[in-house]
């Protein structure tokens, strides 16, 4: 592999550092803002550093605004969504790429179509279905639409193509059944795909706002984004400190998940389109 000259290397790193700092600036402003008081926002809205680092916003968020309960709901919803997407999209991807069945050619275009249709068009019928099922104001209703995302199926179907047919045929000749093929051959070879699906489905369900807002009709079933929107309401304005503190709290699980799975995620994103 060709190596860069020291000068070009230094320039490259400098450019990357500058870009990184530039991209981190909004995040840093949010972080610092979460320690500000409301009057600081009103007095100097553009200021970077708080007068003094107050943790009052975080305390208020959990002690007075019930944010702990919202976070628990979000963890449950997102946890189930991740498991559902990983399990079901792996199975669907395997079936679409490796199994022969009637009308198979029709199924994948349907998955693509489901990705294309705007959410606004699905919103009302989806809500009516949930109402008819008697699931309004339950976590189940919040989870159902994100349990298997079309994008997850798409990703896993693409990854399934990367698993060589020869390998699977060899295993079949050795007497492996479909279940064994799936669990012992297919799944281990699609790790980056599963990690990608896990992260994307977590992000989708964790950040979901409108659906939980409409389905959850009492605050007991609010998820973190909905709860944050309520918690940050103050008299005739937004309580900016609370909003930013909540944003930091909501961001934390995503950061942690990404830090643990970033290697697989980057690999997954880089290779998903090549299959």
């Amino acid at each position, binding site marked *: 592999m060709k190596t860069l000259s020291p000068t070009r290397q230094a320039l490259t790193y400098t450019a990357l550092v500058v870009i990184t700092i530039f991209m981190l600036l909004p995040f840093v402003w949010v972080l610092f803002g979460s320690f500000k008081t*409301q*009057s600081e*926002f*009103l*007095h*100097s*809205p*553009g200021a970077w550093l708080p007068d003094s680092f107050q943790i009052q916003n975080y305390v208020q968020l959990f002690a007075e605004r019930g944010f702990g309960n919202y976070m628990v709901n979000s963890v449950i919803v997102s946890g189930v969504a991740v498991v559902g997407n990983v399990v079901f999209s792996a199975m669907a991807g395997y079936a679409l790429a490796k199994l022969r069945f009637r009308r198979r050619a029709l199924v994948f275009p349907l998955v693509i179509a489901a990705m294309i249709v705007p959410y*606004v*068009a699905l*919103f*009302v019928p989806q*809500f*009516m279905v949930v*109402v008819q099922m008697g699931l*309004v*104001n339950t976590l189940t209703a919040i989870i159902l639409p994100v349990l298997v995302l079309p994008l997850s199926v798409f990703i896993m179907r693409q990854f399934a193509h990367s698993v060589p047919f020869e390998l699977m045929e060899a295993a079949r000749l050795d007497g492996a059944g479909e279940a064994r093929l799936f669990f012992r051959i297919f799944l281990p070879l699609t790790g980056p795909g599963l990690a990608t699906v896990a992260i994307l489905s977590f992000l989708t369900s964790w950040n979901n*706002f*409108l659906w939980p*807002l*409409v389905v959850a*009709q*009492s*605050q007991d079933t609010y998820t973190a984004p*909905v709860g944050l*929107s*309520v918690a940050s*309401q*103050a*008299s*005739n*304005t*937004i309580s*900016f400190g609370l909003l930013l503190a909540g944003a930091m709290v909501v961001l934390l699980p995503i950061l942690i998940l990404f830090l643990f799975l970033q290697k697989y995620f980057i690999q997954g994103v880089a290779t998903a389109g090549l299959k």
Partner: protein
Amino acid sequence: MHLYPSSRRRATMLGLALVTAGALALTGCGRSDDTGTGGDGAGTTIDDKPAKGTVEVWTQGADGAKLPEMFEKFKKDNPDVTIKMTQVPDTEFISKMTAAITAGTVPDLIYAFTESQSALLATDGFDPVPDGLVKADDFFPAIWDNSVIDDIAYGVPWYAYADMTIYRKDLAKKAGVEAPTDWDSLRTFGEKLKASGVEYPLALYVNYDSYTARQLLTFAKQNDGGFISDDQKTWTINSPENVEALEYWSGLIKDGLASPDGPAFLDTVSWSTTGKNAAIIDGGPWFIGWFDDANGKGWADENLDLAVAPVGPDGDEATTVGGGSWFVPQDSENKDAAWKFARFMSQPENQVQWYQIFHNMPALKAAWDDPAMQGDRVLDTVKAGLETGVNLPKVSTWTQVGDVIGQQIEKVVRGGISAKDALDEAQKQAESIGTGQ
């Protein structure tokens, strides 16, 4: 009131609300055939017996955090009632409420801000105010009329506010100007302040959306204009009076008396505090408290003067007003108790108490006679403004049309097109959008 959500988010929410409202018709879940729809409240009366059962209330904005104090008072005279409250984010309240109406999973009672009442009432999902529950004449007309559709009242007004001119007394003194009372003196006020060194003397709304359109509407009304016919069926956006109002309004910006780039909502206080602006034209009463929050208690008293909105060339008065009213959905399971609570909140002593708790001002005229409401310059200015309040167009498409007007206003200020051309285009687009009726 009402945050100023981004246009994009509001457009998404409006889209969802409209899709949901459309679904009402398509799914047959609308209430047009249900008992009471389209009625005028005749035959429905609410007695004076204590309320019973559970009342589910959906609240929005920060008001909900303090409402339980009023619930407790209500329960003293109605011990068999249980009130269950859910706080809903106010920027998404319409979406949630219209979806709930579609599905029939509504609460028993809600309040809606003036800006969202038309969109909600367009769902046809609310009961008329029962006969004799309250008297229309007891309330400020602009607030009462806001929830009246086809002569039928659907809401019981709860609180009200009026905007005002808020200006720096030290800067005005230095420039040698008095509070503006009409369009001419407003311009002179700005010019003299500019000459005395204030960069942008006047703060006007600069987000070119339905809120800017609302501000223009106030100027238009001061010029005997308006955006919609009295029967709410025909847009009148490009009338000569409105064109004149836009020419006046945009002239203030073009001549450097106001900045087209700010202050945005959050920096309004800091621009005036630092002297970049000298006056907030059409500012809500809550700004007074914000100045104290930002600069220390007493700062507003020491540094700010207040004035009612200036009148137009012919002396027409008009003020931007807003507030909130109580509504009972048709599928409410405990309408009796819900209306009783709405009635309770419309009693003078309770509106005064709510002012003392939350600083939301009474929509009921009589409440302003209470000793607690006397001797305060903010209250006096708001009360004067409430008498000349301007209603927003009472059609479900107002936010959409308001955005169109706002976008055209921006073209006048930044794009160099004439006020006439801008409002002609807004009229054309508004006609294609319709009134939703």
